């Protein structure tokens, strides 16, 4: 707050809610793709699948297994009480257990299907163009936003976070460092565990951010500079949820 004759408002950190909950609500988010699976999924030609395709394969496979189990169990229960293949004949006893089991399967399996599919599938909106909303939002760590860029993110955080990265064009090839991210509230400690590292494929660089569990929630911002020249090349902001 500055005090001249007339008081002024500080610029807001943001003017809209964070909507991107794939990035917001996943901890240890890394580039939008699962990388810790032991699955040996591969692409159709036998070559190792890339992250996205492998993730899809795993998700689809899991969905299949879950659905098959659900159908199998449902039929088994129906047959058990009907003593014949699953159909619509009246049942004269054992109904409550059948109903309870059916519902339990729904309870247990339904979230699994959807979680599996949710992690596997990314379908663009059918109709709406991807135009910005009423607010100017920073780029999020949405995989769709970064999938084709030469920077990947690795975030180690037990809590939801949103990352906003604004980097000058063609800066990827330069030696980048962060001088630490600070909150407006000076009482909050800076976030210092941030590093840029050469990526292992395609020359991309990798930005790693580690958020200690005890770090206060809030928005932390700072600049990215050229380690050699000290020139400012961009800004980095991270919002840590409660």
């Amino acid at each position, binding site marked *: 707050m500055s005090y001249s004759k*007339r*008081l*002024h408002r*500080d*610029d*807001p950190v943001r*003017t*809209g*809610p*964070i*909507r*991107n*909950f794939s990035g*917001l*609500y996943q901890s240890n988010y890394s580039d939008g793709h699962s990388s810790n699976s032991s699955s040996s999924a591969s692409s159709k030609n036998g070559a190792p699948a890339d992250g996205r*395709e492998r993730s*899809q*394969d795993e998700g*689809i496979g899991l*969905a299949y297994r879950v*659905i098959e189990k*659900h*159908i199998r169990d*449902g039929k088994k229960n129906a047959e058990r009480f009907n003593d014949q293949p*699953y159909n*619509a004949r*009246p049942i004269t006893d054992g*109904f409550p257990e059948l*109903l309870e089991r*059916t*519902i339990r399967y*729904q*309870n*247990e*399996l*339904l*979230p699994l*299907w*959807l*979680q599996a*599919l*949710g992690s*596997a*599938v990314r*379908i*663009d*909106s059918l109709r*709406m163009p991807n135009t910005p*909303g*009423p*607010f100017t939002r920073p780029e999020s760590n*949405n995989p*769709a936003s970064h999938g084709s860029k030469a920077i990947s993110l690795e975030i180690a955080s037990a809590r*939801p976070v949103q990352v906003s990265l604004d980097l000058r064009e063609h800066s990827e090839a330069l030696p980048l460092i962060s001088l630490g991210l600070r909150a407006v509230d000076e009482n909050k400690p800076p976030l210092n565990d941030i590093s840029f590292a050469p990526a292992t494929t395609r020359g991309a660089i990798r930005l790693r951010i580690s958020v200690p569990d005890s770090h206060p929630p*809030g*928005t932390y911002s700072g600049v990215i500079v050229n380690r050699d020249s000290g020139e400012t090349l961009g800004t980095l902001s991270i*919002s*840590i*949820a*409660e």
Partner: protein
Amino acid sequence: MPIRVAVIGGGCASISAAFELTRPEHKGKYEVTIYQVGWRLGGKGASGRGHAARIEEHGFHVWMGFYENAFRLMRECYAELNRDPAKCRISDWRDAFFPAPFIGVASRSQAGPYSTWLSYFTSAEGLPGDPLTQEYPFSVSSYLSHTASALRTMLLAAETRASRGHDGAPRTENHVSDESAPPSRGGALPEDLANRIARLLKFGLLATTAGIIEALELLRAAFERSAIYPDFLLPLLEAMSSTARGQIETLLGNDSELQFVWQAIDMAMTAMSGVIRFGLFSDPRGFDAINDYDFREWMTINGASESTMNSPLVRSSYDLAMAYEGGDYQRARHAAGVALRGSLRFLFTYRGSIVWKMRAGMGDVVFAPFYEVLKRRGVSFRFFHRLEAVKLSELGELSGSERPYVKALEFAIQAEVRDGEYRPLKDIDGLPCWSSTPDCSQLVEGQRHLDWKFESHWDRRAVGTKTLKVTDDFDFVVLGVGLGAIPFVCQDILERDQRWRDMVTHLKTVETQAFQLWMSEDMESLGWDGPPISLCGFARPFDTWGDMRHLIPEERWPSPPKSIAYFCSALADSGSPTESNDVNYEATRREQVRKNAITFLNNDIGQLWPRAVRDPGKFRWELLADANGTVAEDGEARFDSQFWTANVNPSDRYVLSLPGTPKYRISPLDNTYDNMTIAGDWTACGLDTGCVESAVISGRLAAHAIAGRPALGEIVGYDHP
């Protein structure tokens, strides 16, 4: 020197902003003055006490169990108020609010009469406003697990109550027991055992089959655009799905109970399919990405059956949001993203009870405590101040990069107060309450004001004017008037700012109507033997009914009524007045509501309360309790003893979320105007739908915009897909 904040309006958003800005943690940094038209706070939530201390509301208000921000502030308010329970019957927030777990949906069957689907929602862990004990609950996995659990509830607790004949005898009674639900009410005819078993079987099959269908639907949604899935399987999957759906439709037949259950399941499953199909898991816009669709359109795209889209469940979701453009039931439109977000929050994130009712009027249990606490904190209240204009700085006055700012606030003074300060609350046996009429004895030349309609937009009478100037009188402004008032008070902004013009052009509002009945017979005697219910989807034009029997002991009738009922709905447009001084407009609309209510009582209420009508088309008017004994003994004229309202003032109009329009909302965080923020359920507040929680979130955002507090992360559910 404290920073002076002028808060315009006294609704939920304004009060929340004032509450935040005057928290003790700020140590008096902000000096808040609230400017209020007329004599009472509350905005669309204002209420008053009339004859016999009866409660008179703007409509039927309940608080949803997901109103985390609203309950949090309310609880803090009561804690700070620290009323003595020995002296005040509503001394704690739990005295003020109580669980109302029964929700009903009415449906007209093919044969004509209405049926009601009664659902008992089991209590959820915790209480609204508690600190969040789990990880951020607004996640997909959380919603999905809650969805599954809710499906179970729907299956077990669903109950159809066929409407009764005029002899009061139940025609059918279906019941599925649930140990967690309260005991079934009496009066059910013994059911044929074989029929019951067959029905239960169908439930089981329904669940299983629905699960299979949904699995296929999800797969289809997932693989529709995936190159790694063989294309030839897609038609096969679709054929299987179609076959299975057909089997279910055959199973259902004319069984309305199973129809309800299937439609509920179909809705839930379809919504989840849509989330996947539209990639809402990862879209940075969250559910906003589908806001160009109407909710029903989007559900249909995602495979919901036609019967589900025409179901009372879907219709009820529109009723709750009054989502009828121009109040026209033929133009039901609700932005899909807003509807989906609201439904998920409503159904799956509530704590304690899904719905909470208030023990007294909303003014009494919400705004009176806030008024008292804010007074203690030093907030000044200026009643009888009608905002006339928000004046902006001239462009030539701005230096360099200076942003435009509010230079002055112009008010009409509706009345001068004798002692300088109006004391708005009156004591009802120990409970501070608002009055339905101003206390003119506190006003200079009070007799002169007896017929003034202080809250009417069209009564422009005033005794003077006042202009507040920036730096002289205020530093910051929280503009908390309703959206409908913006075109009248923000001409400067609208002339200059395309975004504000888009906002008032594209965001639509609707008038609403409500009436309340006090009756001399209890609900059972009238033919309703169900629990105290909140019901929507009923006969238009009054689709929503609240059983408010719990208010009887709160009022002060010489001979108390045996039942109280509230009804409300959108009010169809008749062409809004163009002249600000059209003093007859409000009376004309009130008369329309009166006629609507009388027609409704004669022709429709018998579907719910069969013994409230003497013959078809003849309501028993003698049932209506008369608080002051000044009306005819019988006949329709007796309705004049009841309370009804046409909420037609611009600021009272309910804000809609029509498809394609939420993007035109402006956030309280927006700083286009350097010293002004906005607050109200019409702003971009995250939920983006008209309700108490939206208003409270908006007020908290407005406080953040000025003071940097509360932190955005503390505003529960603001960050949400």
